[in-house]
């Protein structure tokens, strides 16, 4: 009986708070601006993807293939629709690959490149905007939940009723969550509508993933709300609680990711720049992932060495990204970001899933090449006039298969457990804080 009353009371206090209204307006504007930026970017990537697929298909036209060393198969990963919400690794580790089997290691290429001058001020994605704004709004909403009630003299009135202390904590927590649901639902439906209007439709699985992203937003908000409630019942005044919360916000949201990134860079350095590129006109021709070949169609030795070096650097970067992912569990914000990326299929797990498909294609192509070269050894590097096109029967061609929802959730186990952990920890602390709270102290 008291729970609903307390929830209702706090809900009304929150919703009629001008700071809350102002913050929500700012949040909605920020989200709108972010979507306005990312949708054209997604469109451009989709166009590039379509162009790549067409190019790779044309390269397999039997009428143009006369030597087995010319055969190359492409495996292209389409831009994720949900990358509007969480950019994640983006195109950074490659979304377009060319596989040549025994002639060269698979080569990955980026389809879309960011402006490298924008070092450190990349445009945020929707998840990034939500991390910053909702955590701040959670601070505004919860810093004076308990100590504010004491300062205004209403807490004694509440506790003079047989209200269990834990019920008070739960009521404040529920009220804060419900307060957030309204703008979140608005943002969710708004972004769905805008996407629909701009021609992006989501499948059932993608809609479920999107819903899960917003569920994880609530889990993230819940952690900050519980932190706010805990500090509110652990401090003497609401001003102190506010200062503490804001201090934690500055260190945890703004400084920790930077510090974590730096620590990871130091512990897993990448030998970038050591693989200096020879400036060669042919390289400018090889812009969509095709390796730089000499006109005879044979991969040069330096191309093979370069491909090996690139693979080494790529693996170092992947290790670095994996290490950063481990550091995510120490921050609810980074955990939520990791979850958002997992649901959007833009995280490291999704990329490794793509990478494994490339490897599988490479192995199949090698086996196929061995079979064909045993049968037609003279068609490897040359052909005679009058010889017809190559025998391409059994050529392995793959379509990219995205990770399933279960695979995404499996890859996101660590940040999910971390977020649950932070919620449980702060809930426990809030309960203990409330239990020890003396309403008489001022």
């Amino acid at each position, binding site marked *: 009986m008291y729970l609903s009353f307390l929830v209702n009371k706090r809900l009304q206090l929150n919703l009629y708070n001008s700071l809350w209204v102002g913050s929500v307006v700012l949040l909605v504007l920020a989200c709108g601006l972010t979507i306005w930026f990312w949708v054209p970017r997604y469109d*451009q990537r989709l166009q590039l993807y379509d162009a790549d697929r067409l190019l790779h298909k044309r390269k397999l036209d039997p009428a143009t293939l006369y030597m087995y060393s010319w055969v190359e198969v492409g495996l292209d990963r389409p831009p994720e629709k949900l990358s509007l919400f969480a950019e994640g690794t983006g195109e950074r*580790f490659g979304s377009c690959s060319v596989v040549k089997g025994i002639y060269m290691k698979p080569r990955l290429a980026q389809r879309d490149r960011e*402006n490298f*001058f924008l070092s450190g001020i990349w445009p945020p994605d929707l998840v990034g905007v939500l991390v910053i704004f909702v955590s701040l709004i959670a601070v505004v909403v919860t810093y004076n939940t308990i100590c504010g009630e004491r300062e205004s003299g209403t807490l004694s009135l509440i506790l003079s009723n047989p209200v269990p202390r834990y019920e008070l904590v739960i009521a404040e927590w529920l009220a804060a969550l419900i307060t957030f649901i309204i703008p979140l639902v608005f943002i969710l439906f708004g972004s769905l509508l805008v996407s629909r209007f701009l021609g992006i439709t989501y499948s059932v699985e993608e809609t479920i993933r999107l819903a899960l992203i917003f569920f994880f937003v609530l889990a993230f908000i819940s952690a900050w709300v519980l932190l706010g409630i805990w500090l509110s019942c652990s401090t003497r005044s609401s*001003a102190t609680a506010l200062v503490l919360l804001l201090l934690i916000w500055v260190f945890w949201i703004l400084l920790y990711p*930077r510090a974590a990134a730096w620590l990871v860079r130091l512990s897993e350095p990448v030998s970038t720049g050591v693989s200096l590129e020879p400036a060669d006109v042919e390289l400018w021709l090889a812009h969509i992932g095709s390796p730089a070949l000499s006109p005879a169609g044979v991969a040069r030795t330096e191309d093979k060495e370069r491909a090996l070096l690139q693979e080494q*650097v790529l*693996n170092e*970067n992947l290790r670095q990204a994996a290490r950063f992912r481990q550091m995510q569990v120490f921050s609810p914000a980074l955990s939520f970001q990791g979850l958002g990326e997992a649901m959007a299929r833009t995280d490291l797990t999704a990329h490794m899933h793509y990478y494994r498909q490339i490897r599988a294609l490479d192995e199949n192509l090698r086996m196929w090449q061995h079979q064909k070269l045993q049968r037609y050894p003279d068609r490897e590097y040359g052909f005679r006039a009058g010889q017809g096109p190559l025998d391409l029967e059994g050529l392995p061609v793959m379509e990219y298969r995205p990770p399933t929802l279960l695979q995404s959730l499996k890859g996101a186990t660590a940040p999910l457990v971390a977020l649950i952990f932070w919620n449980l920890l702060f809930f426990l602390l809030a309960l203990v804080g409330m239990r020890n709270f003396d309403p008489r102290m001022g």
Partner: protein
Amino acid sequence: MIWIVARKVWLTSITDLWFVVGSVLCIVTAVALALMFRVQWQLDVDTYGKMQALSEKQADLDSVTIVRRPEPLAFLRKADEALPRYLIVLPDFTDFPTEDVGSRSFLEKVESLDWASIIVYPFAFLVLVLGAVAISGEKERRTLPLLLSTGLSRAALVIGSYVGIMLALIYVLLMAFLLHLLIVNPTLSSAEWMRVIVAFALSMLFLSVVAWLALWTSTLSHHAQVSLLIGFLAWFLISVVVPQGASLLSQQLAPVPSMREYHAQLSSAEKAFSARTTVSLELLLPILIGPGRNWSEAEKQRYLQQAQEKLFKEHEAALADYKAAVYKIRQHYLSRLTQQMETTRSLMRLSPAGCYWQAMEGIAGTGYWRMLRFYQTAEQYREAYSEFARKWRAALRSHARISGAAVSEGKYRLQGVSSISYRGVDFPRELLPKFQERVSARSDWNGLFLNLSLLIGFNALFFALALAGSLRYDPR
């Protein structure tokens, strides 16, 4: 009277537990950062050494790679995680590397942690807390009417509070800065030490803006927490929203060509080049089935030689035109990238944090400004390299690797030209011009003056707002 208020605010601050806790946190952050920078610096110097050695080994008559030296003042402001560490100098063009996938770190997206970030985030927060409670705290405790009844003017109250806050801050800032320098222990010239002092002064100037901002929000409310919230939101707008928003907006206001457009231009140039460098069997027909079929062998060889020379001449001209076209496309693409960056930087100047960061980049010689200067220096070097390459290419022409399509029939062959490479050709390396970056070029004093003026302007603006806010207060 100003001094009385200042002393009061100063004493209140330094005896406040939260100020002490906040100061300790700021100093610990500065120390941790300094330790990380020391390790990073060693890595940067090692990498630079390796790249320099590799660059010298790989230099040839086709291109030279020049490597950007790590900046000893990067601990002040890094801002170059995503920027290339080297440029490729060709005889006709200076290019940024076209990065292959995975060459750039995934963590480039994360902003760097440096002295400037510590100032904008934890130190600014500390100042915000001090400033927000300075006047609204007095209102809350109802001591402000008492203060004003002593004949204290509103201006004296505001200025006195400001002076008190800055006095409390300067000890902490100086301590953090000195510890930072002690741990980083950079080896600097006297000019560089001057820049360090200027950087410290700039940091004080930025924190002064935050102090005025906090005092202004303090005058807006009768409750310290509300003032703090408003102040924090304002600080959040200027240090987080405006820079990120600037980046988003600039992508719309100054878009770069899409990759599709860029590749389409390259393909178009490539097609035009291919069309001009085809080698057709028709060229051999005169000596195979045409009137030359009955010529003597010597005459046929003479014909072939003339046809080959003509082909070389035409194809080399086509290759030169193709390269010029590609350079033009590339130049246009790069200029659009820089235009977008300039737009971002201009928009960022709407925020004091943006002005401060850019000023620090200029002082530290890092970031976008440094990259541009490096590029300009590379262009100057290219003139010397170009002259050297042309001279030795002419001398070693016979050693060049010419590749292109060919046609042959029997013993008669004609070779086209799609590329001419001097890679692997021996030349006197000791005569190759050496690239040297001028140290004096590594400070952006012009940019500093602009950003300094803007920071002073922000100081004046928030001072005026704080004064106006204090005048609104009615003690009744």
